[in-house]
């Protein structure tokens, strides 16, 4: 029986805002990667400028979750949703921050000749963007199964991370002129790896929201 409660409209708005913010984070990541791979510093600067919007969204969502908790007293599923929203928002903001860091690195690297063909890096970046998109999808649908699948994707990111790490280390050892650029690329790789971990956190919160199960720090989230 569908009752139209006062809280329903507010939960709907909250859900839409989270998705909006997720979409913004995803876009930021993709553009940051493209600014690196296509060596487009203008694009990178756009990413940096746009970060303000994402920060403002975070503040809005924060205010909203507090208001819903204080005034509407959600219970059970609604409560888990609002709590999950409150915890996911800062994670998305940090993902966007990492995207900004990638963009900054791109600006630095684009001033210098390209170190090598980017093969693994864009692959890793795409993987991370996929993870983010699928994670947000699972969040929208409250799909704990899908969330668990996304968690398992992180392994691949970690594997690629180790591979790139090894390759870049070799370059740095063999070619001293390339050290600075290689270092930047190392950091970019680290940012992408961190983004993968953050998406895992989002998925754990999705499982909590759907099943009231805390899988953080358990073997499920290894």
């Amino acid at each position, binding site marked *: 029986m569908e*009752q*139209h*409660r*006062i*809280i329903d*409209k*507010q939960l709907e*708005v909250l859900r*839409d*805002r989270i*998705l*909006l913010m997720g*979409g913004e984070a995803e*876009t930021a990541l993709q553009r940051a990667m493209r600014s690196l791979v296509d060596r487009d510093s203008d694009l990178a600067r756009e990413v940096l400028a746009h970060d303000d919007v994402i920060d403002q969204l975070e503040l*809005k969502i924060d205010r*909203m979750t*507090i*208001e819903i908790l*204080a*005034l*509407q*007293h959600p219970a059970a599923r609604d409560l888990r949703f609002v709590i999950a929203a409150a915890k996911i928002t800062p994670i998305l903001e940090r993902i966007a921050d990492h995207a900004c860091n990638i963009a900054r690195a791109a600006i630095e690297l684009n001033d210098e000749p390209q170190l090598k063909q980017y093969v693994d890096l864009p692959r890793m970046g795409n993987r991370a963007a996929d993870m983010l998109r699928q994670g*947000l*999808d699972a969040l*929208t649908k409250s799909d704990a199964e899908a969330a668990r699948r996304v968690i398992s994707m992180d392994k691949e990111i970690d594997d690629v991370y180790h591979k790139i790490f090894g390759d870049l280390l070799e370059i740095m050892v063999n070619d001293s002129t390339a050290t600075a650029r290689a270092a930047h690329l190392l950091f970019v790789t680290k940012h992408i790896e961190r983004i993968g971990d953050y998406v895992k956190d989002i998925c754990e919160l999705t499982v909590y929201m759907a099943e009231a199960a805390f899988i953080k720090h358990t073997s499920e989230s290894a």
Partner: protein
Amino acid sequence: MTPLSQLDSSVKTAENFEEKKPGKTAKPAVIKISVADLNFFYGKTQALHNIALEIPEREVMAFIGPSGCGKSTFLRTLNRMNDTIPGARVEGSVKIDAKNIYAPGTDVVNLRRKVGMVFQKSNPFPKSIFDNVAYGIRINQMARNKADLNERVEKALTDSALWDEVKDRMKASAFGLSGGQQQRLCIARALAVEPEVVLMDEPASALDPIATQKIEELIVELKKNYTIVIVTHNMQQASRVSDKTAFFLLGKLIEVNSTRRMFTNPDQRLTEDYITGRFG
């Protein structure tokens, strides 16, 4: 998955949604009721001390406070229902649309039509459902003919979300309805005379949770057209439905604030103690 473009527009409605709750409002609110220096006495006992308050139009204002704090007494001064109590005395002014309702020569009967009231225990008349709603219309001669009367009764019952449940038994006794339905009938009866303000004295305190929820949704719907003042001892109810809240204690007004601020960060320590359950 919602495409980003559609999300943008829903966020825009969210902007409107936020803007409606005053905090940093865009448009100034029109004040419907303005109370100044109000003191109220039952014989020698003073029940209200120096109340000053403004109630904006087409919003819901809630009065909260522990038992005996004067909130119901104050509510009843707004439509001069306290006049029926022997020994009741009012000092100060209550202005509705800038006209003092305690000025000598005020038409109290007309005042009570424009400022309707719903009581804690529903009090339908021992008449049929139709006659209950039609009573106010009839005595105020508001209907031109039978068809007009039927229309007005139907509208009042629709506006109080009761029409579908009673449309097939309009001639049945009002006492055959459930508690929640009776209360909505009393609301319909009050709405039928086209008031501008609706006062509600703990309207849901005698009802079960489902009936209470229906009344709360109704209140949120009604504020589009009426100014609503609701007394409630249930703080959660106040936080759910109201735009502004006023906290009373021992006959004094301690604080009045937007509901959002009242329940997240009130100005007065006393208010915070009450809301967090440290007393009362």
